[in-house]
């Protein structure tokens, strides 16, 4: 029957040539269906939703500029003598990799620009992923059903760091060579297999003659392929879930409010690619990045003051700097059963990064376990409305920043005229105190902001207008909110602590008790959203002049 109807239906014939070509393709790939599904898909609009796009576009720019660079780069570690147009290194002995990087910089037209675009885009790529993840964390966008996409995002962050690190070493200059040597030192500290891994990686002793070629292969093939795969997964899940949205009037977990893909959102997102490209081009035009000609070829003897990795590896380098090798008479490197355990390297290299990434990957499940919240969430939390989560995030961020700052301890010392040793002592203290302080302060600030929202929802905004009442009292006039603005301040959930409940055998397990304790920590201090009854009471209290506050409330508002 269906065959018959197909045969009977008048065949569509396009009128124009372009139309006929489009029709030809459509008949073979089913584009119409795709367009029908996605052509008007709605995307919410908010500036903080754009960081993922910044990362995606930086990656596209990395692929474009990187392809150009591969045409001229030679990853060989064979020895050569420089014979290019840069006089500062004339006839100096170096590897072919370094020499070809210099040629890209000085003898290939536009090569220096492409190198700088590539490196700036790489820094921006990782930075935008980091900011995107911070946004997702602080707004609670990782909650059901997006937990797996959060994990994919975390894997992308690690892959981006891997891509960056393998690329950083390729020019085989003095700075990156010393960076590689540090990595070699860290690898050697791994118990039992460390020496083997080092020999396998470098094809023998450091530095050997194979490492640049191997990193090059990882950098241009394996890591980008994995990143692409993860991006596909990530975007597929974004399509399945649809985008989250900020709370506000007209927005709830059952809908998505925004602009349709065609034309507005497609135009904005498409235009934004060119904007990101333009900004990176501006940076590459006017700001030097990785001046390899200053560093010279890699040679195991020299080193430059201020030897640091690119920013995203900085926190590991900082942790290495903070760790004391000896405390009193205790050496963190010791011999057990005739073998050497190098805790002064192993601990700082693995533990902070391990904790950060484990907690990051696990966090959606940790919070879900504590809150027993199995609902889907498509409306985001404003960070203040989840004070404990925000505080945990800030504690982690502060911890990261302390280690990050430690990677620049020498520059802090020279630029602020303080002692290098004092900087290290302070940062060691902050390593422990910083997260705790950040947690407390953030939580208090979030609660205070919630209280402010509550007051505004109930009493309106302060207008700054002072009025003297007939009986001589001075009061400030408050302007009431319209219902849309008010809903933004009151439309959130404020969960209460969930006490421990017995399981099916009537026993309260120890795990359940722990969960209840954490739930208490999470929600003990909370500010409930204002209710209509409260608003009514507030108005009733003040009689018909709802804009006028009574004196006792005044004190609590302005003190």
């Amino acid at each position, binding site marked *: 029957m269906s065959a018959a109807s197909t045969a009977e239906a008048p065949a569509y014939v396009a009128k124009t040539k372009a139309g006929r070509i489009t029709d030809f393709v459509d008949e073979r790939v089913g584009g119409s269906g795709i367009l029908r599904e996605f052509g008007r898909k709605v995307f919410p609009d908010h500036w903080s939703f754009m960081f993922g796009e910044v990362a995606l576009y930086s990656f596209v720019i990395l692929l474009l500029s990187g392809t150009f660079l591969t045409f001229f780069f030679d990853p060989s570690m064979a020895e050569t003598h420089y014979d290019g147009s840069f006089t500062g290194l004339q006839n100096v002995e170096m590897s072919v990799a370094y020499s070809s990087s210099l040629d890209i910089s000085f003898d290939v037209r536009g090569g220096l620009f492409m190198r*700088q675009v590539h490196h*700036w885009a790489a820094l921006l790529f990782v930075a935008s992923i980091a900011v995107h993840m911070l946004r997702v964390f602080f707004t609670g966008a990782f909650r059901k059903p997006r937990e797996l996409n959060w994990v994919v995002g975390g894997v992308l962050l690690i892959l981006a760091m891997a891509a960056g690190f393998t690329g950083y070493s390729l020019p085989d200059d003095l700075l990156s060579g010393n960076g590689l040597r540090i990595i070699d030192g860290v690898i050697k500290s791994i118990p039992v297999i460390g020496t083997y891994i080092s020999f396998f990686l470098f094809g023998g002793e450091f530095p050997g003659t194979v490492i640049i070629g191997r990193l090059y292969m990882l950098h241009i093939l394996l890591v980008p392929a994995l990143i692409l795969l993860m991006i596909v997964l990530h975007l597929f899940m974004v399509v399945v879930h649809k985008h989250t949205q900020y709370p506000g009037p007209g927005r709830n977990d059952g809908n998505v409010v925004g602009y349709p893909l065609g034309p507005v959102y497609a135009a904005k997102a498409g235009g934004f690619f060119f904007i990101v490209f333009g900004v990176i081009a501006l*940076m590459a035009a006017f*700001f030097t990045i*990785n*001046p390899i000609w200053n560093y010279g070829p890699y*040679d195991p003897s020299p*080193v*430059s003051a201020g030897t640091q990795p690119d920013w995203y590896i900085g926190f590991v380098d900082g942790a290495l700097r903070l760790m004391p090798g000896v405390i009193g008479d205790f050496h963190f490197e010791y011999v057990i059963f005739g073998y050497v355990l190098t805790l002064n390297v192993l601990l700082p290299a693995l533990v902070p990064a391990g904790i950060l990434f484990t907690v990051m990957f696990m966090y959606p499940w940790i919070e879900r376990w504590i809150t027993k919240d199995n609902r889907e969430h498509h409306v985001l939390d404003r960070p203040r409305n989840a004070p404990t989560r925000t505080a945990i995030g800030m504690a982690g961020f502060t911890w990261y920043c302390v280690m990050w700052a430690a990677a620049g301890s020498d520059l802090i010392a020279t630029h602020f*005229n303080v002692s290098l040793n004092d900087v290290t002592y302070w940062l060691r203290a902050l390593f422990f105190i910083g997260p705790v302080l950040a947690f407390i302060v953030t939580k208090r600030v979030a609660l205070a902001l919630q209280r402010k929202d509550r007051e505004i929802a109930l009493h309106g905004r302060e207008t700054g207008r002072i009025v003297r009442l007939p009986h001589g009292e001075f009061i400030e006039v408050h302007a009431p909110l319209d219902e849309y603005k008010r809903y933004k301040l009151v439309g959130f959930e404020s969960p209460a602590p969930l006490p421990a409940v017995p399981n099916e055998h009537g026993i309260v397990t120890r795990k359940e008790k722990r969960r209840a304790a954490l739930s208490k920590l999470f929600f003990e201090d909370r500010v409930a959203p204002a209710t209509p009854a409260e608003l009514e009471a507030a108005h009733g209290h003040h009689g018909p002049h709802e804009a006028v506050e009574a004196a006792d409330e005044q004190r609590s508002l302005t003190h």
Partner: protein
Amino acid sequence: MKALSQKRRHPLAAIALLLMGLLVTGGLYAVATTMNQAKASTTNFTEQDTEEGGKLFAANCATCHGMGAGGTQDGPSLVGVGAASVDFQVGTGRMPMQMNGPQAQEKPVQFNEEQTRQLAAYVASLGPGPSIPEAGLLDEKGNAAEGGELFRVNCAMCHNAAAAGGALTRGKYAPPLAGVSGQHIYEAMATGPQNMPVFNDANISPEGKRDIITYLKQIENNGSPGGADLGALGPVAEGLFVWIAGLGVIIAFTIWLTSRTS
């Protein structure tokens, strides 16, 4: 007027301002790379120089270095440090020292060229030591590539590969070398001021020192081919820049992009 104030409130205005700021910063960096010529000098001191220098020394330096420059608790003996040492320390304003600290700071020069020469003559007369280099060694016409190699092996670990300076222990530091005259760089190598090791002629030959100065002056005069050098401080400065300026400009764009047009 009204049109202008409306435009100022326009979301594009913020971006335009940021872009302008970016361009101006870049321009300023480029202008800041100025040339610095080394001066020729003479090592021929007259007896009168020595005599005048002795008076100046007694009046200004003897408090710490002792009469006859024999040294006291507060300052080392200057017998045998040579004219180069005096010319460096006094010529860069490090001496006389303002106060005791981790190391003597560079500051405005306290004595004029004539007086510095007289002081150098006096100290040189106390015992043999490194003399002020001849002009031929400061002509910046050596081999920059070899100078660069020597610089990386002997100097870069403290002064940074691009001579931007670096930190030492407990508040001490190796200063940036941009803007330091070739003569002072030479004298610093020859005499090892403060905590800097001595690089005598057996360690780095006079020609090697000339190459190093050539290299330093070349990178200083050329500037960075890639644009502003962000202080030549390496990845930390680059990371800070991408987070603050790069992401800052991009956030400004995203805010404009998602804001409603009036």
